[in-house]
């Protein structure tokens, strides 16, 4: 059961931290429409976070709510992949991070929708419609940025190369992921990764971007609590209110 709680925390934390990152762009997006879109994606991800963390808290049985799990865990207790804590950077950085994440998220949810755990299947079924929309949007934007001006192309290619080493962790399964596959809770990594590579390479081809080497060395550690320095700053901002005013509610 502990492994399943960990697995749920990973799902919740990925959505939570990416949501927090996108929320930071509220009022600072490159165009009003993009500003609204990014914050709407953040809102979807926050809603998904709540479903994952609530379930994790229930299974844990220690009375921890979604809020306590989100706002009272330190960096080493967070289970998100390193990619979601990478900085917003320029707009290409934000969108490439989003595109890698959305592609993985989309195929993962298709697998989780078939989970033997009914609650997980329900959450995935609910989330997949939103994620489909996210993926269409980020794919569209990658094509527009890549096949755009020389400047947008160069920035997008740089982001593609820079963030690539963070794309692999989502498919690097450890004992927890393997146990979930074995129990029929989660889909196997191989199919997910193949689907990811196929979709990303098709979009990059259309975007006139060069696909990085799929066999390149990949960063890892986030899923087990070994994070980049960025996460501490993200949590400091995100958790400030609850840490300073314990029990505060809206």
């Amino acid at each position, binding site marked *: 059961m502990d492994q399943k709680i960990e697995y749920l925390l990973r799902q919740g934390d990925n959505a939570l931290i990416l949501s927090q990152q996108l929320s930071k762009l509220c009022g600072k997006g490159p165009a009003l429409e993009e500003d*609204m879109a990014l914050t*709407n994606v953040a*809102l979807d991800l926050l809603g998904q976070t709540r479903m994952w963390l609530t379930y994790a808290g229930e299974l844990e049985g220690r009375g921890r709510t979604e809020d306590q799990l989100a706002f009272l865990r330190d960096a080493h207790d967070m289970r998100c992949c390193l990619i979601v804590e990478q900085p917003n950077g320029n707009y290409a950085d934000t969108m490439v991070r989003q595109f890698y994440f959305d592609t993985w998220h989309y195929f993962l949810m298709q697998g989780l929708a078939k989970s033997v755990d009914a609650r997980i299947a329900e959450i995935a079924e609910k989330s997949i419609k939103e994620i*489909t929309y996210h993926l*269409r949007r980020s794919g569209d934007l990658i094509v527009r940025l890549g096949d755009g001006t020389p400047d947008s192309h160069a920035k997008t290619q740089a982001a593609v190369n820079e963030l690539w080493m963070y794309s692999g962790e989502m498919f690097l399964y450890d004992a927890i992921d393997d146990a979930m596959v074995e129990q029929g809770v989660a889909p196997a990594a191989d199919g997910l990764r193949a689907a990811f590579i196929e*979709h990303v390479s098709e979009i990059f081809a259309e975007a006139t971007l060069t696909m990085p080497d799929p066999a390149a060395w990949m960063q890892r550690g986030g899923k087990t609590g070994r994070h980049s320095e960025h996460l501490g700053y993200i949590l400091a901002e995100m958790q400030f209110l609850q840490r300073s005013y314990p029990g505060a509610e809206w």
Partner: protein
Amino acid sequence: MSTQPASTEQVWAWLGEVSDPEIPVISVVDLGIVRAVAWEETTCVVTITPTYSGCPAMTVIADSVRDALHSHGVPEVRLVNQLSPAWTTDWMSDTGKAALKGYGIAPPAQQAMDISGLRLGVKRVAAPKLVVICPNCGSSHTELTSQFGSTPCKALYKCLDCREPFDYFKCH
């Protein structure tokens, strides 16, 4: 107060008067959020499905449903949040769609999105080519401005004839 509970039809009718907090012309019933009404002795059990995971209106909707039933003399109300089957714009009633249009929001232009689309080899172009009718002038000569509008459930369009921007309640 009578201990005889009201009929479920009566409860549906009461819920038909509870409006969406963000789009007050449409009721929670017309939106397809209310899935079932049942009695467990004196407790009225209302099953609702959330529209979008992060929709901030859902809490308000739940409170409004509770308040409406209390005001009609139902002492105990229990809300069941049902995720599956996931809510879809296909459940929106024709009355609801007409009300949206009258309010200046273009209703969903087709059946809910086919989530298998991206896997069928058509990939990016799988995003459906929609004809969205301008709710102001009725023109089909419209263009997508942004995939997200003022809320996650809406996209932003503009009419190329009357030049007005408008919200489109997207298929979901």
